[in-house]
């Protein structure tokens, strides 16, 4: 036991972080040992990122202590953290696309003489780093010419290029990697471990976590829940700790029976294709049915939905109520009573500076138009208030800027906006991304309610439990093709097999 405690490289004691009155972290504990992979597991908004930012010197803890390599540790900046041997690879890419791989990897640490950069030394040094890591990238290539996966690897190389790394934090490093690059990353992690470097690993992919981790710490709502060794815990236990309730409790049951297979579909899509994005996608959905769409990143799910909504041109046939429908713009789609909650609510869903009311009415302005184009403002306000009440959007008033609401309430505002168009077909792309557990449950209940009222729902998600828990049937996509249509009771293993293309 004494041997085990002696190789503790990072010790976090009672760390709290307050943002105004809101506690992002409360009395957090964590012990990370040299040469081990320690996974941090928690829902979005559980406090993982806050904790990492404290370790990287981006934030300062409100109270508590951190010990790193046996000394007290309070980094002032990421540079300071790097000088102490702690490096962090963030999920968001921080690369300059019009600079070369070498320039990016050694950014701010370029070999130079009197401020003049020695380009040859720069490339040589970067090439060494890339070779050591076994990355298949040319250091003289511009980052903008690389694939997303390769960029992610460059980001990792940049993080690992500090002189003497003792602790490496990887924040969802595989989210945009394909299998081949994931294997490269895993072998890098293996070599780091062998050198005695400690790794904090953040990921949502359970299989990956079970394969890679030595220790797993679960945090929830900013609080430490438990640390377990990998051998002593199952995926179900981890998920239960993470969400704070049993799996089957977080997905509300159907409010009415699923539509019979014999019923005519409201929407049928046949042979939908778009060059380079998806090929020959066919499916149909009935009134009141929840059709799940699952696939890894890059499988083409969102692209299909954008094509259905008229944002992207595609070939193939779309039929609504059995009649051929031409949809070349969102105007057409909305006219056919299709609604689309996109995956990026801040970019495509909301006008953050505008009020809740304006955001809720924006897709249904025609409903509030009187003669000469005047707005029926009283009706607009009434409708907005009704939606706020119906979806229990927590906001001071309908005049509050929507950008000041929490992620969950913003997402509900997007839903409210589309419900006001009275859709018959509702596309939900990652409807619970970046939403806390409570709001998640409420959104699931709303989805159930809408299905019970007869809305056909296409539910796109990269969270397998969510698609499995909510869908009546399930479409699985792999590399732009539909690889299977499964019944709602499919096992996670079967879905993953189709999503990764393992089955023949």
């Amino acid at each position, binding site marked *: 036991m004494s041997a085990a405690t002696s190789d503790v490289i990072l010790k976090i004691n009672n760390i709290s972080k307050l943002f105004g009155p809101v506690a992002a972290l409360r009395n957090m504990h964590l012990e990370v040992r040299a040469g081990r992979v320690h996974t941090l597991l928690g829902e979005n908004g559980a406090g993982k990122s806050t904790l990492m930012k404290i370790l990287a010197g981006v934030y300062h803890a409100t109270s508590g202590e951190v010990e790193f390599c046996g000394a007290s540790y309070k980094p002032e900046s990421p540079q300071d953290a790097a000088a102490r041997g702690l490096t962090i690879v963030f999920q968001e890419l921080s690369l300059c696309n019009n600079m070369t791989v070498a320039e990016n990897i050694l950014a701010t640490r370029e070999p130079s003489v009197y401020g003049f950069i020695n380009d040859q030394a720069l490339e040589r040094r970067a090439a060494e780093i890339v070779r050591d890591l076994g990355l298949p990238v040319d250091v003289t290539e511009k980052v903008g010419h690389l694939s997303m996966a390769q960029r992610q690897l460059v980001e990792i190389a940049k993080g690992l290029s500090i002189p003497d790394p003792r602790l490496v934090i990887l924040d969802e490093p595989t989210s945009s990697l394909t299998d081949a690059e994931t294997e490269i990353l895993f072998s890098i992690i293996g070599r780091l471990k062998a050198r005695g470097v400690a790794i904090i690993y953040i990921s949502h992919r359970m299989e990956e976590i079970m394969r890679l981790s030595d220790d797993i710490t679960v945090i929830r709502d900013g609080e430490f829940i438990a640390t377990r060794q990998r051998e002593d815990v199952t995926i179900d236990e981890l998920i239960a700790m993470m969400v704070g309730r049993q799996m089957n409790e977080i997905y509300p049951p159907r409010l009415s029976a699923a539509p019979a297979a014999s019923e005519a579909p409201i929407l049928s899509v046949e042979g939908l294709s778009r060059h380079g994005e998806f090929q020959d996608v066919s499916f149909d959905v009935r009134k009141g049915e929840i059709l799940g769409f699952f696939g890894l990143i890059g499988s083409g799910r969102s692209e299909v939905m954008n094509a259905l*909504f008229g*944002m992207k041109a595609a070939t193939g046939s779309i039929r609504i109520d059995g009649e051929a429908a031409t949809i070349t*713009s*969102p*105007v057409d*789609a*909305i*006219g056919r009573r299709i609604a*689309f909650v*996109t995956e990026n609510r801040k*970019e*495509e*869903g*909301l*006008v*953050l*500076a*505008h009020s809740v009311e*304006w955001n809720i009415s*924006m*897709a249904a*302005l*025609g409903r*509030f*138009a009187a003669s*000469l*184009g*005047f*707005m029926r*403002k009283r009706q607009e306000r009434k409708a907005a208030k009704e939606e706020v009440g119906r979806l229990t959007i927590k906001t001071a008033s309908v005049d509050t800027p929507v950008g000041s609401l929490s992620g969950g309430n913003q997402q509900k505002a997007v839903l409210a*906006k589309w419900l006001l168009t009275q859709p018959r077909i509702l596309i939900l792309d990652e409807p619970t991304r970046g939403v806390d557990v409570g709001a998640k449950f409420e959104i699931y209940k709303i989805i159930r309610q809408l299905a019970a009222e007869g809305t056909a729902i296409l539910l796109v998600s990269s969270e397998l439990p969510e698609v499995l828990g909510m869908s009546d049937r399930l479409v699985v996509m792999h590399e732009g093709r539909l690889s299977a249509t499964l019944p709602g009771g499919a096992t996670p293993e079967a879905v993953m097999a189709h999503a990764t293309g393992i089955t023949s």
Partner: protein
Amino acid sequence: MSDEKHVSSAQKPIAKLLRQYGGILVSLVILCIIFSVMNPRFMTVANLMNVLQQIAVIAIAAFGMTWVILLGEIDLSIGSIIAVAGMAAAQAFLAGFGFMPTLLLTLLAGAAMGLANGALTAKLGLPSFIVTVATMGIFRGLVSLPTNGAPAMIEDPTWIAIGAESFVGLPIIIWIVVVLFVFNHVLLSKTTFGRRAYLTGGNREAAIYSGIKVDRVKITIFMISGIMAAISGILLSSRLYSAQTNAGTSYELDAIAAAVLGGTSLAGGVGTMIGTLIGALIIGVMNNGMNMLSVPYFYQLIVKGLVILLAVWLDVRSKRAKQ
């Protein structure tokens, strides 16, 4: 109970006005106090009428600019459009057109130039800054084509009357400003078109996904800007009895300043016509007051720049404090 409600709703617009425009209203009042202390003739009805007439050209152009900035775009060509409008009118009169045909032709010319700006921006996806820098030069060049750079006289009595006569005790110019203010204010704040402009400026992507035809909104707005600039050009040529090739030069900067002083966000999605009107008043009061104090022109430029910085800073500060 119902009485109370009535009172509060009557007070509400004024309270709202103060809350929203407090910063710049204070600036305007301070400026007026300074000028009236330094020159007692400043605060006379005659002079205030004068101020209003002087700001007419800028205010109307600024109404158009407010739409454009609201959309997150910019229109640098309006100074040139002002000159083209005057020259188009002068040439039409020379060709023997009457008042109404000339008026329509001038407005059409403004609309056409706005259409060019809008179509190039929306359909070719070029940044409006670049498009309107280019058309600013092109339109300015067009002005000189008919006369080889010489000014052209305008002698039509109705045209001249616009800038010289009064109607029910108020100069016609002021009536035009009032009518155009009400028109733009109502169009922006009370109609679905205005709402679509706000939404498109606030988040273009979200507007597209919500079924708003953003290109159509954009082109229409550049046309409004062109028409407003043409009306400014009509007023200016009327007051000058002529079309000058350098008319309206750098007016786009005053129009932008008026809109931004009035709280229109250069990022798009935020702004009102009331704010722009107050912004134009600040600029007008400064010009008038400093002229009355015989401040040399170059000092006026410096002071104007500083006051704009101060007013915008006050405004930004008060908005931050609210958050």
